[in-house]
């Protein structure tokens, strides 16, 4: 009960206003658009891209897009693309002939390309959704440089410590009480003694392990230091950064042998098949537990990454914000904007949820009363944090995060004793970046 209350209070903070009728006003915004825009929309074709998501992703897109067509008379042509390839070619796709609207990520990834003139400024659309969008989410979607939003925020998810309650009970610990570093080490040690993986990690793609680094750095040195580090205001060679890697090194003996072989899906399978004690990951994979069986899903649990430095407690979390962006080079920008707005509107969200979307929406219109225990816990984990990070590859510039930090963490895991050299290289590469 108290947990639930916690959730509500936290959500109110995020929203910045109480749930009210404002959402309805936003829903009606489209109809009050100038008549010319509405007629222009009618009969036009809007193109939509879903990034990954498989059959469920297609189903959700179809439901929302069909509702949009019904409402506006604009036809939507949707496609699903391989998420990695889309990201690897993002700059090219946006310079070419992109689809009008697409699911994308807040942070550096939308800010940068918005400032470069590849994404549309969505100030007006967000303005109309103000009634249902919390101020914190709007702030998160707004570029600190140009003060413009290039993405309409829709969903977010926590990166937390995931484990199976039954397994934690098996080793004689209380699954509700994994609170500090000692608990965590004990959990890993006892799991490992049973011949299982203490802490599972995948780093094949180079980004997965950033989640572990982010949270360790925030726990040990605090949110401000972490953000400073990612933006060049603190140094990678700083003793504080080294301290973070000391803790990281303590995790390595507990890890699976094949860290570099697997990605997030490999980690998921380890937990799904009861082969690991704990892992640090975004909660999005929970759907796959549900798909396997209700019992597996009920067994899954998530908590904030344990406290290390009491000064910072568990005040920070990686909670990447996702949303909808509109491509400047799309053929039907008006249509794209209308579609993006619709996806983030209470009507759109209702359609998505009906079609099986289990994401947590930032919208105030989003009803969490029917939430199951795990989803409520996700909200609680989010609520426990005061500072929201977006994840390393969205908090840092693109020509640094992927090409430099990712490989640096990989080489560290391969050979922890090289850490000083690795950090020197990382700092040198930061300093060699063009200033822009």
């Amino acid at each position, binding site marked *: 009960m108290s947990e639930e209350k916690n959730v509500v209070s936290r959500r109110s903070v995020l929203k910045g206003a109480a749930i009210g009728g404002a959402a309805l006003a936003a829903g009606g915004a489209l109809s009050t658009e100038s008549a010319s825009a509405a007629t222009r929309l009618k009969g036009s074709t809007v193109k939509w891209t879903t990034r990954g998501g498989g059959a469920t992703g297609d189903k959700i897109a179809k439901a929302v897009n069909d509702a949009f067509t019904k409402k506006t008379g604009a036809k939507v042509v949707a496609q699903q693309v391989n998420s990695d390839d889309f*990201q690897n070619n993002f700059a090219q796709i946006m310079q070419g002939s992109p689809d009008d609207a697409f699911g994308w990520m807040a942070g550096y990834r939308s800010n940068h390309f918005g400032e470069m003139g590849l994404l549309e400024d969505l100030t007006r659309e967000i303005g109309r959704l103000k009634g249902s969008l919390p101020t914190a989410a709007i702030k998160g979607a707004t570029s600190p440089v140009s003060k413009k939003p290039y993405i309409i925020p829709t969903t977010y998810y926590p990166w937390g410590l995931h484990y199976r309650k039954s397994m934690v009970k098996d080793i004689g610990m209380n699954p509700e009480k994994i609170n500090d570093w000692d608990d965590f080490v004990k959990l890993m040690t006892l799991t490992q003694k049973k011949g299982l993986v203490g802490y599972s990690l995948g780093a094949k793609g180079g980004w997965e392990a950033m989640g572990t680094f982010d949270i360790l750095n925030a726990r040990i040195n605090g949110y401000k230091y972490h953000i400073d580090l990612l933006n060049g205001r603190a140094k990678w060679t700083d003793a504080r950064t080294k301290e973070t890697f000391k803790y990281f090194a303590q995790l390595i003996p507990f890890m699976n042998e094949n860290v*570099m072989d697997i990605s997030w899906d*490999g980690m998921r399978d380890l937990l799904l098949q009861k082969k690991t004690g704990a892992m640090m990951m975004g909660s999005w994979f929970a759907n796959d537990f549900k798909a396997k069986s209700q019992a597996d899903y009920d067994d899954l649990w998530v908590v904030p990454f344990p406290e290390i430095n009491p000064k910072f407690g568990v005040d920070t979390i990686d909670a990447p914000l996702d949303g909808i962006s509109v491509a400047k080079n799309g053929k039907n920008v008006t249509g794209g904007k209308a579609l993006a707005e619709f996806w983030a509107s209470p009507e759109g969200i209702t359609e998505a949820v009906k079609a099986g979307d289990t994401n947590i929406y930032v919208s105030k219109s989003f009803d969490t009363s029917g939430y199951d225990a795990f989803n409520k816990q996700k909200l609680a984990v989010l609520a426990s944090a005061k500072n929201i990070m977006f994840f390393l590859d969205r908090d840092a510039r693109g020509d640094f995060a992927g090409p430099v930090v990712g490989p640096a963490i990989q080489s560290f895991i391969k050979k922890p004793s090289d850490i000083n050299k690795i950090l020197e290289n990382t700092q*040198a590469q930061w300093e*060699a970046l*063009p200033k822009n």
Partner: protein
Amino acid sequence: MKTAATVKKNRSRRSLSKTDRFTLATFVGIPTLLQIILLWVPAVVTIILSFTYWNGIRLKDIQWAGIQNYKNIFFDNPLFYQALKNNAIWLAFFVLIATPLGILLAYQIDRGIKGHAFFESIYYLPVVLSLAVIGIIWNFMLQPGGFVQGLMGRDIGNAISIWGNPKINTWVILGIASWRHIGYIMLLYLSGLKSVDPALKEAAAIDGATDWQIFRKIILPTMQPVNIIIVVITLIESLRAFDLVYIIYGSPTIFPLLNLLVFQNFAGQGISMKGAAYAVILLLLCIVPIITYLRISFKEDLK
């Protein structure tokens, strides 16, 4: 005789009508233009861009960087040396192991053993597969829960590290690459071998020559043109190799190769002209085999 031919030729050229000359110009012009526009102009653009800072989006953001990109690659980037090493190992492995194996295989199959056509086809089969398919096939074999891990009695909980294990991944990847390369070399060599007179071999054998001697003294010299092609194909393939690794890893960081570094830095979200600089370094490495090849192929013409 010679002069007569020259006269004839000159006459025929002079006698070309305007239409004929126009036809000839079109015949050569269109393909040449296509080559220049699609290959050589972009190559030059890349070379120029390698001396700039740019994120590849707005022209007005281009800044002169001098040799900064190269300096950064040479002095601060450990991935570069790993990539160089991997490319070098790849090259050495192909030259010293995979290619000779392909030749050996061809030599043995050429003895006319039973079912040689069948074997030929089997060994060649991987060559006609797309690397996209090859990536999927080998993933079935090696992933946690896959065939090889299963044979070793490993389930996903204690799966051994293959793709990410620096001690073996090089050999695994080279193994898969060779799976393709050996068949290619075999078939190239086989078709050449068929033109070698078997009586020659037999005679040498009766005179007491060992297999190795026969190969070195008779086969190798007869096969000179094929040998050159094979050497060049091996060099170029090793330096261009990257599709397979892209398919398996998706990113260049665990098994860096120069091509992959170009791709990671020259496209996508982290685009910078360091990617162009990597491409130029790769080009410089390719120039030696390219020139060698050209010199051998056009030996007579160049004289």
